[in-house]
């Protein structure tokens, strides 16, 4: 038994190394540029694929061919990182926080299709490393010598980074920028060069991590997203910007995996997120993280929010009338698309409510959408409820989750809050996935069809229109109510808000719960619209969808989520129909939109109108 414990510890340490390489890169990039680089997993994947190609080209049998290929792959990925920074990210640094996330997500989509086109769909198993092909006997069992090498590489890179950051001018600048960005600007450093080099460096680390995986893991087209989720966890658990923290967390997660499969073989994935949730609740800035110095960027000057003027109200009413009259003329297929868009609009608006006026960005909003859907489906399946009460049960379940999860989440802020929402969403997802007796597991719950009167496409369309329009309008009313103002007050300046008697945490908690409730309504409708529910409803991609819709529309506008939902969902829907390379097209479209409209579509429109005539505020 002791032997097994020791071997599993070594196994955990071996997996920790690659995790650490990728995570440290992400952490360094975040520390300096404040960019949450969603494409970091893609850079890792490129490192693996490029390594595979280069090693094969240079000759996998010779040590020089293998290690040369690995290093070359890392350098190439660093170059790709620099290219991404120069071509895209550099142009959008002044945009609101998290907006860069949108751009990097566009890059993720593009790289997925590029990798598919270049390397084809088959998994690529790399060669074994020369000199490390075999095993050594450790604790009575065989242990691959390459894993031992990996175990050594982690601390070696950590030491190297330490040296770089303590002993070189560049490293000192990076550290200074991590602690206080304004200071570096004041020092007269070439900030552009610093940012580009930091991004390239972080990308290179990810590439190295990917290439080093070759002898133990096949390069696949899925490794980007599975890595990014894990790396986010590592970085946040370790503390953003802390390289030592990243190593500590990588080891923790690696060892947790290795032992998790011995003790809880079925819930290894959620175990990681459970640990993250616990760490964030106990140590809100991660194991070795520190509260960021200076004012966070979220409290930058936000534009005014003004209630709709006459023209906007008229346009809104017209749009509503148009939507209401549409079934008279439109074919069923258009109604189906519109029904889905309406539901997504409510979903996006619910996220916007907490994210825009509340400043509470959530990476896990799908949890409440999905719980709403499951609420409805469970009511149908287990209680035999018809549609109407089931639709009420949907926001009930989502709301309860919002109240419970929200209580923990509002104690944090910024990226940490976002990551805690992600952790809770993953826990909810795992519950839906694993509790097979209740939820049917990944096969979902089928047969969640509407009541007889709402079965026709037109009837369901009207039902969705009525509920979604009412809820979106209600959210809008709330934004301009004292509660909404209080929420904005807490976001703009918590110090002032507390000093005029506002319980900021409770206001944010309420907003969290309301957002969850509204997402639950959307989820309930979605369940009856699709006729079935699946764990994918609560999965990360759905959360990302919501985030994209809100960001694309414009966070600091009231109509943004509506426009964003139609733009994003409509765009991806149409592109998916047109080409099998829709991910590349969608990614490109997102990147271009981000660069053209750095305040979102509605924000861009308002800025344009502002230039034409004064007196307009954000709607």
């Amino acid at each position, binding site marked *: 038994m002791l032997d097994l414990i020791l071997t599993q510890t070594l196994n955990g340490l071996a997996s920790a190394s690659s995790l650490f390489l990728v995570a440290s890169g992400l952490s360094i990039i975040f520390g300096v540029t404040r960019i949450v680089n969603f494409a970091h997993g893609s850079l890792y994947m490129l490192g693996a694929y490029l390594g595979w190609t280069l090693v094969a080209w240079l000759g996998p049998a010779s040590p020089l061919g293998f290690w040369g290929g690995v290093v070359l792959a890392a350098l190439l990925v660093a170059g790709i990182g620099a290219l991404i920074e120069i071509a895209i990210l550099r142009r959008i640094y002044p945009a609101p926080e998290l907006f860069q996330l949108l751009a990097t997500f566009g890059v993720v989509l593009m790289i997925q299709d590029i990798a598919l086109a270049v390397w084809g769909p088959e998994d690529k198993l790399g060669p074994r490393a020369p000199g490390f092909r075999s095993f050594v006997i450790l604790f009575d069992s065989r242990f691959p010598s390459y894993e031992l090498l990996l175990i050594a590489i982690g601390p070696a890179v950590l030491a190297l980074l330490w040296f770089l950051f303590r002993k070189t001018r560049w490293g000192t600048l990076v550290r200074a920028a991590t602690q206080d960005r304004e200071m570096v600007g004041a020092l007269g450093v070439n900030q552009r060069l610093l940012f580009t080099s930091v991004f390239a460096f972080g990308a290179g680390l990810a590439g190295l991590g990917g290439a080093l995986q070759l002898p133990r893991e096949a390069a696949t087209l899925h490794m980007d997203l599975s890595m990014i989720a894990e790396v986010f966890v590592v970085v946040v658990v370790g503390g953003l910007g802390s390289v030592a923290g990243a190593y500590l967390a990588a080891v923790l997660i690696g060892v947790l995996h290795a032992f998790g*499969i011995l003790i809880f073989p079925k819930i290894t*994935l959620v175990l990681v997120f459970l640990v993250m949730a616990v760490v964030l609740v106990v140590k809100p800035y991660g194991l070795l993280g520190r509260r960021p110095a200076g004012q966070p960027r979220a409290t930058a000057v936000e534009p005014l929010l003004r209630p709709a003027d006459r023209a906007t109200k008229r346009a809104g009413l017209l749009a509503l009338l148009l939507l209401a009259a549409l079934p008279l003329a439109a074919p069923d297929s258009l109604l189906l698309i519109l029904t889905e868009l309406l539901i997504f609009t409510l979903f996006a608006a619910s996220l916007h409510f907490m994210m825009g006026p509340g400043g509470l960005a959530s990476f896990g909003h799908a949890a409440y959408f999905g719980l709403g859907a499951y609420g409805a489906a469970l009511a149908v399946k287990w209680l035999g409820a018809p549609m109407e009460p089931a639709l009420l049960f949907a926001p009930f379940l989502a709301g309860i989750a919002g109240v419970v999860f929200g209580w923990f989440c509002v104690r944090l802020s910024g990226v940490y809050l976002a990551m805690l929402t992600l952790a809770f969403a993953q826990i909810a997802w795992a519950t839906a996935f694993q509790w097979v007796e209740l939820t049917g597991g*990944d096969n979902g719950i089928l047969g969640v069809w509407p009541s007889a009167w709402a079965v026709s496409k037109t009837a369901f369309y009207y039902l969705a229109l009525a509920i979604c329009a009412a809820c979106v309008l209600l959210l809008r009313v709330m934004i301009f109510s004292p509660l909404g103002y209080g929420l904005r007050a807490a976001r703009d300046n918590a110090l002032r808000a507390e000093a005029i008697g506002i319980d900021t945490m409770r206001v944010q908690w309420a907003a969290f719960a309301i957002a969850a409730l509204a997402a639950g309504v959307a989820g309930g409708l979605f369940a009856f619209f*699709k006729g*079935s529910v699946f764990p*994918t409803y609560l999965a990360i991609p759905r959360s990302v969808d919501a985030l994209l819709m809100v960001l694309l529309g414009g966070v600091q506008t009231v109509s943004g989520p509506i426009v964003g939902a139609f733009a994003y969902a409509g765009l991806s829907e149409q592109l998916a129909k*047109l080409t099998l*390379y829709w991910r590349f097209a969608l990614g490109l479209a997102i990147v271009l939109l981000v660069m053209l409209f750095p305040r979102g579509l509605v924000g861009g429109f308002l800025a344009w109108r502002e230039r034409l005539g004064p007196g307009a505020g954000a709607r």
Partner: protein
Amino acid sequence: MTIDRRRFLAAASGGAVALAAPSLVRAQGAGAIRIGEINSYTAQPAFLKPYRQGWELAQAQVNAAGGVLGRKIETIFRDDAGKPEDAVRHAGDLINAEKVDLLSGGYLSNVGLAIADFAAQNKRLYAASEPLSDALVWSKGNRYTFRLRPSTYMQAAMLVEEAARLKARKWALVAPNYEYGQSAVKWFKELLKKARPDVEFVAEQYPALGRIDAGATVQALEAAKPDAIFNVTFSADLTNFVRQGNTRGLFEGRDVVSMLTGEPEYLDALGTETPEGWIVTGYPHADLATPEHVRFRDAYQARYNDYPRLGSVVGFDTMNSIAAALAKAGTTDNEALVAAMEGLTFPSAFGSAEYRAIDHQATLGAFVGRTALKDGKGVLVDWRYADGAKYLPSDDVVKTLRPAG
């Protein structure tokens, strides 16, 4: 990199052609029979690219022979990106906007189940090609859904037949942690225990799909000191599992019985790492010399300059079975089609097969054999064709398993 770029551009322009294609095809083929084919093309390209090629080969052959009912067949391909809700959206759009006559496709089980439920609700024929879930035709089976591939149950039963002959008593199990993996393990244990009451199961590992921690998993299995291992992992999980298992000696002196591993999609990726002597289900594409298969393989090779994968066979057979059903029904009316599908005999690359009337499961079989390493590549040897019809429960049992009747 220039070659790669050129290839990429070619692929991208291929996308652009696809972009223009639907309206073009529609203009040409007025009166064509339209099939809405939904699959996880971008999420599972390794299986589905060959699948689509096999499908298009069959369609071209059918159309070259004058089509069915005097009409050409055309297919609208849609990508569900691995999400059941997207598959349902495409299904709705295909029926309402594209006016397709019937639906087909599905790779993941949950996608298949979602389309099946949609099909029942909308009274449309759904020819499920690949989803392996037993629920698709049994517990959640419905009048409008038919499935081509041998199900999880059938493939498990084929392997149990072999496993029961082994001396091994202590078994360890490893399966991806989702429905397919869980039900494969469930059937394997149940059927093996029935055939060999003396066996015991000493370890079970359920790595998350696509996220196996191979080293730790191998170590955990090794620690249980089993006589034999039943593996359900596939794709990258399998590759990583095998490499770690080889290095750590997990498979030495042990029997391994493994689902799907003999399929070229997974065997090819293993390359020199291919373990010898595993008992697997699969597809011996190079050695199968039946006339139907040779005809299929030659046509495929000629058209794509590549050998067929199992996906190619599934795409090819699904398309052909639909054509056969249309011909038998003499109409595209879906109720008549359902009636025609029940008990339909259709030609497949593996010989003729039948959609059973009792549960809408096709009798298409699989090949059971052993893995071997030949010229640095994994191959299937000592194989035999296991006819699907022989690996299904008795009709009485099926009736209890399928409430829909």
